[in-house]
């Protein structure tokens, strides 16, 4: 079946039952999509599907037919990523890094919907992404800074 992956159309020939997470990592070698739990609880596997944040471990390929999927690898070439990663860097929000690709994509989805979110809205937007290192403050700050600095991008 056909879907669009990081801007390119791909013709997937495997099982429709395969987990999107596994296919992205193993077949397309997009290892920036992390596996933390395989039960939709941690958000490490987050990707953007048709403009929405989803857990790729919760998606069988059949569900993704015709969809547009963006992983951290595809997103990291964008201007918005540059603003976000600079913001994350400025507050050292990246500790072990495992939650971060998911957090970055969650950040994008927050700002895409709401370019000037309140702190509560930011916290709600990342509430499905677990982090064990930071206590979340630095990540929330990073998103707030990106919103301030990303003038017009979102």
């Amino acid at each position, binding site marked *: 079946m056909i879907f669009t992956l990081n801007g390119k159309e791909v013709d997937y020939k495997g099982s429709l039952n395969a987990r999107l997470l596994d296919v992205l990592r193993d077949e397309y*070698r997009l*290892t920036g999509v992390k596996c933390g739990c395989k*039960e939709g609880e941690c958000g490490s596997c987050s990707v953007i599907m048709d403009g929405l944040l989803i857990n790729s471990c919760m998606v069988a390929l059949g569900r993704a037919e015709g969809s547009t999927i963006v992983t951290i690898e595809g997103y990291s070439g964008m201007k918005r990523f540059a603003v976000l990663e600079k913001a994350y860097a400025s507050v050292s929000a990246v500790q072990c890094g495992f939650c971060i*690709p998911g957090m970055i994509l969650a950040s994008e989805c927050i700002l895409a919907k709401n370019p000037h979110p309140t702190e509560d809205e930011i916290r709600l937007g990342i509430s499905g992404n677990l982090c064990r290192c930071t*206590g979340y403050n630095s990540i929330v700050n990073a998103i707030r800074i990106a919103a301030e600095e990303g003038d017009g991008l979102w």
Partner: protein
Amino acid sequence: MDTISKSVIKIDHTPKVSGTAMYVADYSTEGVLFGKLLYSTKARARLVDVKVPVLPDGYLVVDKNDVPGENQVHIVLDDTPVFACETVEYIGEPILMVVGPDEKQVLAITNSIEVIYEDLPAVLNMRDSDVVFFNYEYGKGDIEKAFADSDNIYEEEFRTGRQEQVYLETQGMIAEPHDGRMTVHGSMQCPYYIHRAVAKALGYEPGRVQIIQDVTGGAFGGKEAFPSILAAQTAVAAHKAGKPVRVVFDRQEDMEFTSKRHPSLCHYKVAVKDGKVTAMDIDVIYDAGAYTTLSAVVLQRGIICSSGVYNIENLKVHGRAVKTNTVPSGAFRGFGGPQTFFAVEMMMEHVAGRLGIDSLTFKEKHIAREGDSTSTSGMYHFPVPLPDMINEVDKTCDFRRKYKEYSKPQTGRYRRGIGISLYFHGAGFTGSGERDYIKAVAKIHKTSDGIVHVLTANTDMGQGLLTTFTKIVAKELDLPFDRIIIENPDTDLVPDSGPTVASRSLMIVGELLRRASAELRAIWKDGEDQIIEEHFQEPDFLIPFTIENFHGDAYPTYAWAVAAVELEIDTLTGLANVLGTYGSFDVGTPIDMNIVVGQMEGGLMQGVGYASMEQIAADSKGRIRNNNLSDYIIPTSMDVTNLVALIHVEKYPQGPYGAKGAGELSVVGVPAAYIEAMEMAIGTRINHIPFSAEDTMKVLQEVQRK
């Protein structure tokens, strides 16, 4: 603020944020065999038979018979087997590994293996155990006289539960045999621990083993010792297969079968005279699980901390680590300290309550000062800044006023409480461990092109060590970062600077790097290849300490903390809403402010979880029931939205630029602050963590009935 504290962009920021950082599971699996462990389903049994089906070509089973060296994993002692022998001692003990080219097929084979057990009686509760792995006693003063002379004696028992580290990246190792050597890389804290374990299991000379740390997605102590077991198993499998073998845990097996924080039972008997605590008689039991692993050292730290930040002149401390047929307990941030700090802080608070004094005022009467004797008759050689830190926290969260207000009887639907906790973390390895056991060596190697290579065995697991080590070397040599190279350690390339544990890396190894850099600066010759090696030297001021007599300076210095938690409960549901979590932390000079604050905030959050929502429940057979992230609950971004970490600086002259151990401190004392707040809100004394909404509701209903 010291110039070194000024935050920089972390040197591993870019690969991690862009998703290009390679964690062990990210490496290509081409030509690599998958390994899956088969675990015991019994808490204790004799292994009668293991029925392996006929295996397809390319698939093999690896067990105790395939261990070329010794079937022992060296972790302090050697009782942990690589693969189970005659008996299994806990649910989750690895019996064998199935290895093969297709992951699904490997899993199917593993599930089809039938194990015949002969049940043996199992001990699941530490109260029922009569196997004492470790037993320590120490004391000072005249405890009998103090109790005889006392006005009042108070006794109470405190319990703490298991806590799972929940590093976001699960355990994983890849072992690759090549050219008569074995290279193992993976997620780890201590490459040289693994090096020793793998060499022992394979029966190899040390030079034939190479251990490389991959980018590690969190550890918190959970990857201090456990990886040695997994690495030994994976290496043995790769040795037998003659091909690379990869084992990456799924979340369920990681949660069920890897090491967790020791559950504890702490019994305190306290003598009070003239409104002050004059003596403490403390009995501590830690649940070591089925094998000894790190329990000796965890227990040591726990009992050293057991009289808290207080100057208690008459002390008797007895500690035991006992065996139960459960997953062996291991290291978790705080390493035995959180358990006894919970107990001592709650004890002090309860005694204060019985004496009719507010807990903070009572505690303040006993705080140790510079020059006072420590619990083990060492000395606090440096200032104890707790009084100032208490004031900082008070100012930040209006503690004293709220304490008074919330102490009044509350009858509404929503009830509030606020609690405070005073604690320390002894920085560095306990006692003479650094000098006698670790003997750290750090190296810097300037190549002729003027690039400085930083060579230590210490690992960055998120706490920013690659960056802070770089900053130290850069500052001392006055070089820009792009002239300094530091990589995740490879035992072929780095000396053994000791494990990344005990909050020692910055304080001990960072200082070695600083000295090495200072030396290099003095003798720098352009165009020349120069290597400086620096060996650990025990500070002069230390009063010698050994485990045999438990007397002297257990730690060279202490990192100090004050934590406060304010919460509000809903009496209709028992749910607690944490209104604020605050901490003031003295870890000496922060080598990077954002990094240190980030560590403090993370630890505060883990402490709230430990006190409340993080519960491990086992069934009557000992099987852990909540083995996934929907059932083992850690805080999300919406759970503690008001989290404040303050930094207080008391420089430690022997640490680099005045830095002290920082990694563990923040989590250690948070639960007592949470529980004190909860007690105030629901109007009862509490003596255990975790304390859940259910526990709250039970208390409220009992109070209602009265």
